């Protein structure tokens, strides 16, 4: 398919519109078919992340599921030494937040094709990668660096899923300590805020706009809704129903219209059943 069409670009980098360079990748030396990686330097206007320095980061599309971060690192080391590799399901800015979790508590990664951000040590490696000829494939699994797949991999996975209870307990304990500490800090901060609003000796209250999340009253969507409903009810109670003659007439009219609609619906339902031969007993 695709390779045959690009024969003319032999020993040359293949660049497609959009600025992506096509690299080919095969699982092992004797595999017949190849995947194609699409690489480009990482360039995003808005992002100012220290993880992905603009001039040294390579943006890679279509990394097969059997390539883990370490495998990708090895693969791209031929263009220059690699600082870090980040594999993600979808392209986008990094949004790692929250406390760092131990591996066992993170949800399992899905085995799918990924996009990668590879940070090289020097920007020259970027150029090297981009000018790599497309018919010289990268090889995932070689003799000196075999990649386990299939049964071997699953056995390895199963083996690694074991964690010693003591170790697990340690992880839990350290996390909970952290958590308690954070909670305490939070509580401490809130207490201070409240204290600040206390009267001082002369009876003065210092009023400040509080920090985000330090509201005095509980603030939730449900509460908001309740309040709104209460208001609505109040309003409705004040309104008079069927007071004027025209109001009464309207209500009756609506009722008949409703009945008519229902009747039509029933009639149609029967017609539909007839059309579907629902009445043919055998």
């Amino acid at each position, binding site marked *: 398919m695709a390779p045959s069409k690009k024969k003319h670009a032999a020993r040359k980098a293949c660049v497609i*519109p959009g600025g992506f360079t096509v690299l080919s990748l095969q699982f092992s030396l004797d595999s017949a078919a190849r995947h194609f990686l699409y690489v480009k330097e990482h360039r995003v206007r808005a992002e100012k992340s220290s993880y992905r320095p603009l001039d040294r980061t390579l943006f890679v599309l279509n990394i097969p599921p059997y390539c883990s971060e370490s495998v990708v690192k090895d693969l791209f080391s031929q263009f220059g030494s690699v600082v870090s590799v980040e594999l993600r399901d979808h392209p986008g800015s990094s949004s790692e937040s929250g406390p760092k979790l131990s591996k066992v508590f993170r949800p399992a990664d899905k085995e799918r094709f990924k996009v990668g951000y590879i940070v090289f040590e020097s920007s020259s490696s970027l150029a090297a990668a981009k000018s790599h000829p497309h018919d010289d494939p990268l090889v995932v699994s070689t003799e000196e660096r075999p990649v386990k797949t299939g049964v071997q991999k699953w056995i390895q996975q199963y083996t690694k899923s*074991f*964690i010693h209870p003591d170790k697990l307990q340690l992880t839990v304990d350290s996390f909970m300590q952290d958590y308690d500490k954070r909670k305490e800090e939070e509580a401490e901060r809130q207490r201070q805020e409240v204290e600040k609003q206390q009267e001082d000796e002369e009876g003065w209250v210092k009023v400040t706009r509080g920090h985000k999340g330090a509201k005095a009253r509980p603030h*939730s969507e449900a509460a908001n809704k309740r309040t709104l409903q209460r208001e609505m009810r109040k309003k409705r109670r004040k309104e008079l129903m069927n007071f004027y003659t025209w109001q009464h007439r309207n209500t009756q009219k609506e009722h008949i219209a409703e*009945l008519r609609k229902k009747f039509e619906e*029933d009639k*149609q339902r029967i017609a539909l059943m007839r*059309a579907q031969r629902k009445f043919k007993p055998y």
Partner: protein
Amino acid sequence: MKKKQIITEEPAEMHPSDFSHDDDDEEEQLDAPVKPKRIKVSEEEEVVYHPVKLSRNDLYRPPTAEELNHLKEAESLFHCSLLKMQMEELLKEVALSERKKQQIDSFVKTVTKLLETVPASPEVEVSDLSWLSGAVKVPFLLVPRTTKGRFHMAPPASIDLIGSYPLGTCIKPHVRVDLLATIPADILHPKDVLNQRYPRKRALYLAGLAQHLKSSPDIGTMRYSCLHGNRLQPILLLTPPGKDSSSFTVCVHVCPPPGFFKPSRFHPQRNNIRTEWYTGLQASHSESSEPPTPHYNSSVLGDLLPRAHLQFLSAIRSQCSAFSDGITLLKVWLHQRELDQGTGCFNGFLASMLLAYLLMTHRISNTMTAYQLLRNSLNYLASTDLTVSGISLAKDPDSTAPSLVEFHNAFQVVFVDPSGHLNMCADMTACTYKQLQHEAFVSMQFWDDPTVDGFHCLLMTPKPMIRTSDHVFQLCDLVKLQASCKKQNLLSELMDHSGNYFLTALPFILSLLQQGLGQRIRLLTHSLSPDPEWSVESEAPKYKAQPPLSFGLLLNPELVASVLEKGPPADSPKAAEFRQLWGSRSELRRFQDGAITEAVLWDGKSAYQKRLVPKQIITHLLQLHADIPESCVRFVGTMVDDVILTGNEVPTTGEEESLVVVQSYDDLSRKLWKLEDLPLSITAVQGAHPALRYTQVFPPEPVKLDYSFFDRGKACRSLLPKEGKPCPHYITPITVICHMEGSGKWPHDRIAIRHIRAAFHISLAELLKKHHNYTCRPCPTHLDVWKEGLVFRIQVAYHREPQVLRESVNAEGLLVVRDNEEAQALEMATIHKPLLTSTLHGLQQQHSCFGAVCRMAKRWLAAQLFSEDITEDTADLLVASLFLHPAPFSPPSSPQVGFLRFLRLLSAFDWRNNPLVVNLNNQLTAAEYTEIKNDFMASRESLPVMFIATPKDKKLSLWTRRAPSVQMLQRAMMVAAESLKVLEHQLMDGSQMQDVRVIMRPPLDAYDVLIHLNPKQVPLLRHAVDPPAVSFSRGVIAESAAQPGGALPVIDYNPVSLYLTELRDAFGDLALFFCDPYGGTVISVLWKPKAFVPAPFKTSQMAARSVEVTGEEVKTIPNVEAILEDFHVMGKGLVKSVEARTEKWML
């Protein structure tokens, strides 16, 4: 690239039309386009359900008084009026069209004309057939060969239409018009009633008519048959020529002139067939000591009366306007129950007579509607037993007419005609009447139930025997019945039935079975043998040519499986009777209470074997008393059980194994409750696994491990699968949810809760190890406990966790509650699944074969590759609905019949327009049913295609939210219908190849790629539909269960499912993957129809794609070669070969 669409073509009706209807639209709909559209709908009868859109003018125009009344009525009487409308539609559907009537009339006219011109022939002896030109045979079995009398041909004295057609009660689809030709009086002799002389003349006359008609080009086909299987009353079936030939049949009957014979000659106690003539032996019987021949008498008498009956019914019909409609409904009802055809049936004629009787006795009035007539007649049938208290239509019978008692002595069912001489139910067996009564009773039960679609159950659902009766068996070689007649000394009865040994032996066999099965069954039914039909050119078929006779048993679930038949005490006078019945099987036994009684003990260790106890009884009794060898009895009741059969020494279908699992779980649950020293107490321990509700297809069995087969883990005392060896035995973790007490100590943070749960798992593990020495493996998400050869997976749950998962703080610091998938999944696992499990566990306690039906249904779904779409829980719910809402059947009492009904439900339910309501624990009220239905109709388009409502889930259909899709449901329905057809055919037809597994082998040619797996790495290989000859050692020692403690086995390690998950994760956008989870060695891959459409280049959608550059435009297509290569790479060691069926799709 092009690709054929296989499954994905959906019929129009499944395509939801846009259903976004709200009242705001009304304003915009004021102008023109609305009205034409509506008219179009009603004219063309569009199949799609469009929302009704009335224009504003239509809706708000001033109402007339009449319309107002109409609307009010529809509002208040909806349930009833819908039923009424439905019945009216049904009547329209089965009634004959005017065109058809014209066709019939013209054909009848032709036939009449032809018959009137039958040429006369010279008089000859009855046995002389030379006047017949050999082209036509006489439709009569000449046993004995000769009888006295002379015969000649002459045109019929009169030709009239009789039966349902002139009465206007003739219905589609088997339209039969009865034409009566009267034999001229000079052919007959008043003494002809004796020794079959009249029936033979009748047959000769019919042959003469046939010979004359044969030369005419106006007749299509001509065949002989006989009236209700009575060989003394042959009839001639005519069809019109040309293309209408199958649309209706004209039956030519022949009868003597009215009043030719004296009715008193046919008294049921008179003899009209002499033994001397019949046996050919000289006997010294005087006429008075000859045995009576009631059946022969009534068959001849029946020929005398058809005109009188027609007159009687016409008179009744003119009084009651809804008479014909009432009969039509009753006929449809009877037809659906297979009661209206064959020997000894309750046909349309009897139905009309019954209605006439009810009218005459003022049980129904002349002004009633068809709906009320049907209802009253069913009510009457249900409450009256004609086998003990017969009824008579005769107002003032003459003195020679027999009394009801005399009728009862001669016949099993008594319903006397208006003349007072004829029992119209002469051929009916008591069993058939009991069946009729039972059906009427069941119908009356669900008629008023607002939660049941009464119309559908009553008149639309066919009830073939194989789907109605719990057990079915067949007598194949009917010749053997001759022997049983001999054995039971039934010669005089045989004479009465003119040698029909089958009819002679039937009542005897039925009573024998009834006696032997006793309390084990609620109802014994038998098939009515269909009327034989044969060509006019061939001889009448012998009795042995009849199809096998089927018997159906409706079981009494409490008693049927008992292996002991306890008889009377040894010294009681009844003991001899008991011994006589059971023969050598009866033996004296001493019981624990000291009683010494006669008893019969049947074999049966497992539930599967106990289900076969009726088979043992039947074969034993038939062999003993009727000389019918076991080879002639074909027992159909447990044939499908084969597919879930396991067990090494004793064959079982999983009931015993499930019980072991449940007992082990109960023990664990008790032990968990007793644990102390936990920081929070346990509030609930609930099972959440199919094995704990008896519905796991192959329930986990306790195993003992061969340690040398495995690698040993370093960190924990656990075993690991070894590379190079076959995949180890698959050990199913049985999920148990353990709810912890709510407390302020629980953190209010999702990740912290996760950690606390892990801590609970660790401490539970420690306690279980300390107190009970169970090997445990705590993980963050669960705790595996290795207990007596089984693995339980305990998950600690905190009831507020889903709530915590839903809460989040948005940018303005507002606490918002948003539903998300994670919370739904957690609720499903910790709340809904345990609840379902316990509810269904309860159902199993009520209906002992519930679990087996579920297992069979799920085995079928898995084999047909539907297990991903119709999940285990969905399938269990579907089966539960069969037990909870059995109407018009009774709850299944054998797995096979349950399975057949499951297939029927899946294939015939109108998923598009109806919700399936499963009223678990009977919690829903009628009002709630309506509410569910209304909610469903209002938002049909946004709801899952397969909608199942339960008391705890009325609006969402939780279990089918994710799957199946429209296409998969469509396919499942199709496959289910086909499987049902094949299976029923196989079960009922003994001559077919007997292999019920045919329905478990899906054709694989519809798929694009087949991935063949290495059987060594398929752990559940032994459960495959066709188990392979070779088996692999999987590290299990076949001995009793393991002791507590010991190393932890390899749990939940199944390379096939791991591989499938990886494939679906990686290529789920491009293809669908199917595999039989129970030992399937092939993964079938189907490309998605849109997968090969070139797509524009997008950085987020580049998975496994390659680019094609044309100028500046970049398109991407899947890189198929690499994908196929990836199938290999990702399943290394498991995949044997990848077979790309490129002929189905092009590269």
